[in-house]
């Protein structure tokens, strides 16, 4: 019954998506209003069908109906309800189904928010997104069908991978990352629409920027949460290992970040149109490549749940999308004429250009290191992987250069900068650079790269704060307004500029924290008997003993430690060893004790009941919690940048009220 209904919903969505794709193209070509209306209706219908199919699968999972193949594959009578609910994305077929729901939502939302947008490119855009929908719906209908009937239904299932049951972050990391991947279909569709219609007007640029930024926000959160999950669950003491799966998510993030910046040049100067669209198309292709790499089992990791046959389908789709993009770009890029030439060497425009160059270089480097092992295995049949030093060697200098650029760029004026302006920009952040480097030196950093990174970070933080607070500052000076009130009203108006500086601030915090945590990290591996102690970083840990708790699906062995500094105990930390009844081998859960200066990270390797000896890996990871905080700030910034601007109306009101209004406007208009 559920199986039949699920299949019917998916088949209907294939039909809806196909009809919508043709309808969109037809509406774009003919300009027919009724074709456009039908395309929009089909977009909503597709979203509804996908959501309904997901709701049905959720029902099967929660009701533990093992006559449905996916529920039988990941379900287990022994797991709590919330685990059953989130196991929708704990394995391949379910995650593709869930993917379809997010895709439907994105298409429907883009359609809804642009229902009155007259841009001739929009019907093409919706049609393109629906064409992508055809592929995903086909994937769910065939190669990754989660609704296969199972007869006879097994009495119980194995339950999801224990690593995925171990932490609440697993509930939010995948949906965020999926939204960040799938959402790229929106900018992709809009860019293709622009190319097909041969125009890149403001009514297209606005949704393009909005949806690129929305998806960028999701992707950022997804990547950071993935790192956080690895850090809290996997027990090797780090959050990033240049694993193929991590790289797969970083690649579209890099190109999307580049596109967000070059899009600003398109809006302000009317230049780099073709380049920006190329970046957006590349971003979408990279999300498909990333999905292929993480889901098809070509790389073995916690993400490639099992070998599957979706690989060839994905590869075919990737090849088709790549050929289509190249063909479209080569045929239509000439239509996108620049309204101006790029000016002088030392303007803010150049800073954006260098930003794009650095981000694309980083993308190519990471792509090369990620795909190279696949090529070698395909050609020579030998298995290799690319070690972290390769990535670090490239990413560290490029990252430092990007950090510095986040400082010098906003300090440069638009247009053409003279030597004096250039000089002023070059010294503007020096105090911040000196302060950050000095703090690093005082805290024992002797690593040259770290000091350079800190200086660049300090430079950029100072310039960012100056630029972000300039309007409020001007307001305070001009109107004698209370500085906090001035800042609050600036924030409440929702400002794109303010938002982007807040994003920069968040990213800078992340970059500095990553630099510090990766260079100043300390670790020790020890075996301890009860009462024995060890030292890691500035702290000591003492093994107090073990205790066990029985839960529904596992037995949890807690290994208790007292944390102390200079002999004074200040906390207890309990890393765990989980014995899942469905698994042969135990899975450890590390304990992370966070302080502002860093994390004490304890991970149990082994517990020997007979001798009472525990094997322990301990890490001192400086500043790691700042990474999670920085990501939060970046997301707040993205929301601020997306917030509908009330500035114009506010400015009108202010003009009527006080003579200070021109000063405000001047303050805000001086970038």
């Amino acid at each position, binding site marked *: 019954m559920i199986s039949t209904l699920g299949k019917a919903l998916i088949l209907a969505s294939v039909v809806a998506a196909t009809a919508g794709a043709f309808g969109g193209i037809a509406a774009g070509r003919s300009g027919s209003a009724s074709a456009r209306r039908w395309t929009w209706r089909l977009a909503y219908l597709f979203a509804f069908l996908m959501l309904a199919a997901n709701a049905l699968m959720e029902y099967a999972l929660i009701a533990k109906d093992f006559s449905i193949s996916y529920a039988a594959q990941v379900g287990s009578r022994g797991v709590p309800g919330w685990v059953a609910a989130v196991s929708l994305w704990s394995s391949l077929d379910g995650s593709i189904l869930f993917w379809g729901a997010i895709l439907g939502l994105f298409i429907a939302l883009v359609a809804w928010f642009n229902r009155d947008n007259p841009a001739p490119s929009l019907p093409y855009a919706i049609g393109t997104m629906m064409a992508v929908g055809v592929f995903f719906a086909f994937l769910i209908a065939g190669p990754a069908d989660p609704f296969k009937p199972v007869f006879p239904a097994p009495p119980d299932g194995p339950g999801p991978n224990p690593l995925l049951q171990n932490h609440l972050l697993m509930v939010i990391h995948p949906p965020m990352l999926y939204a960040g991947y799938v959402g790229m279909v929106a900018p992709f569709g809009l860019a293709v629409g622009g190319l097909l219609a041969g125009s890149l007007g403001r009514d297209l640029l606005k949704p393009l920027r909005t949806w690129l930024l929305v998806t960028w926000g999701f992707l950022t959160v997804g990547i950071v949460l993935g790192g956080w999950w690895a850090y809290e669950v996997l027990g090797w003491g780090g959050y990033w290992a240049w694993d193929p799966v991590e790289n797969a998510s970083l690649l579209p993030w890099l190109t999307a970040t580049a596109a967000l910046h070059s899009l600003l040049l398109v809006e302000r100067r009317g230049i780099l149109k073709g380049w920006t669209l190329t970046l957006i198309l590349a971003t979408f292709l990279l999300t498909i490549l990333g999905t292929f790499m993480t889901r098809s089992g070509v790389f073995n990791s916690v993400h490639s749940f099992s070998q599957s046959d979706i690989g060839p389908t994905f590869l075919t789709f990737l090849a088709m999308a790549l050929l289509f993009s190249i063909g479209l770009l080569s045929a239509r890029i000439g239509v996108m004429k620049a309204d101006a030439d790029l000016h002088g060497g030392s303007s803010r425009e150049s800073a954006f250009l260098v930003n794009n160059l650095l981000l694309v270089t980083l993308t190519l480097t990471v792509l090369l290191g990620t795909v190279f092992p696949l090529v070698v295995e395909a050609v020579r049949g030998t298995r290799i992987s*690319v070690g972290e030093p390769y990535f670090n060697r490239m990413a560290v200098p490029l990252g430092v250069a990007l950090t510095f650029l986040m400082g010098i760029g906003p300090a440069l004026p638009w247009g053409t900068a003279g030597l004096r302006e250039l000089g002023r920009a070059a010294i503007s952040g020096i105090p911040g650079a000196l302060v950050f480097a000095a703090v690093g030196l005082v805290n024992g950093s002797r690593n040259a790269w770290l000091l350079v990174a800190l200086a660049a970070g300090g430079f950029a933080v100072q310039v960012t704060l100056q630029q972000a607070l300039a309007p409020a500052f001007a307001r305070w000076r001009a109107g004698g307004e209370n500085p906090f009130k001035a800042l609050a009203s600036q924030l409440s108006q929702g400002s794109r500029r303010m938002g982007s500086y807040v994003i920069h601030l968040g990213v800078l915090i992340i970059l500095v924290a990553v630099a510090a945590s990766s260079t100043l990290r300390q670790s020790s591996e020890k075996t301890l008997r009860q009462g024995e102690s060890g030292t890691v970083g500035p702290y000591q840990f003492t093994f107090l003993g073990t205790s066990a708790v029985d839960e529904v699906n596992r037995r949890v062995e807690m290994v208790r430690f007292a944390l102390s500094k200079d002999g004074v105990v200040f906390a207890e930390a309990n890393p765990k060893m989980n014995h899942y009844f469905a698994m*042969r081998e135990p899975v450890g859960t590390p304990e992370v004790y966070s302080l502002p200066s860093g994390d004490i990270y304890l991970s149990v390797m082994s517990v020997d009941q007979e001798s009472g000896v525990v094997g322990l890996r301990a890490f001192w990871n400086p500043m790691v919690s700042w990474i999670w905080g920085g990501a939060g700030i970046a997301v707040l910034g993205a929301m601020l940048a997306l917030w509908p601007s009330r500035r114009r109306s506010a400015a009108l009101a202010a003009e009527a009220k006080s003579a200070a209004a021109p000063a405000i406007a001047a303050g805000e208009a001086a970038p």
Partner: protein
Amino acid sequence: MSDAINQVAAPLPRAQLPKKSGMFALGALLIAGGAIAFVGFGGLGKNLIYYWGPAQLLEAGAKARGATIRLGGLVADNSVKYEAGATELDFAVTDGEKTVPVHTKGVPPQMFREGIGVVVEGTVNEAGKFEGSRLMVSHGNEYRAPKRGEKLGEEQIKQIINDAKDEQK
């Protein structure tokens, strides 16, 4: 949202600079990008990690020295030398026929024992001994421990290496 657009200075007149400058800039970008990619590619060869079984490692002989190798196989019977509480561990990795002695520093994971599949990342030192820097126990759900004395095929060693990847992430 449109505030930035409103305050744009009037677009600069076209053709203030010759059109060639665009091509020139593009060429400069390509050259710079190519140079960096070349540097990156150069670094690639030195930072590869090879996935080998004991037979392949012995075959490579002196050529293997200095390279980072992920050695997969079974922990040989009666080869483990480890005192509870110590952090020096000696054992041998075998495919049932060829055996490579391994030395590592650190605490062995809970599941480590003779006969289990392991992956050791490390290098062959001057003395020809395998010096491990990371030890992972292979524990895939689908993994079937081979019978004692059975020789491991290439596919099985691949499986062991794959299954151990979760752990090190």
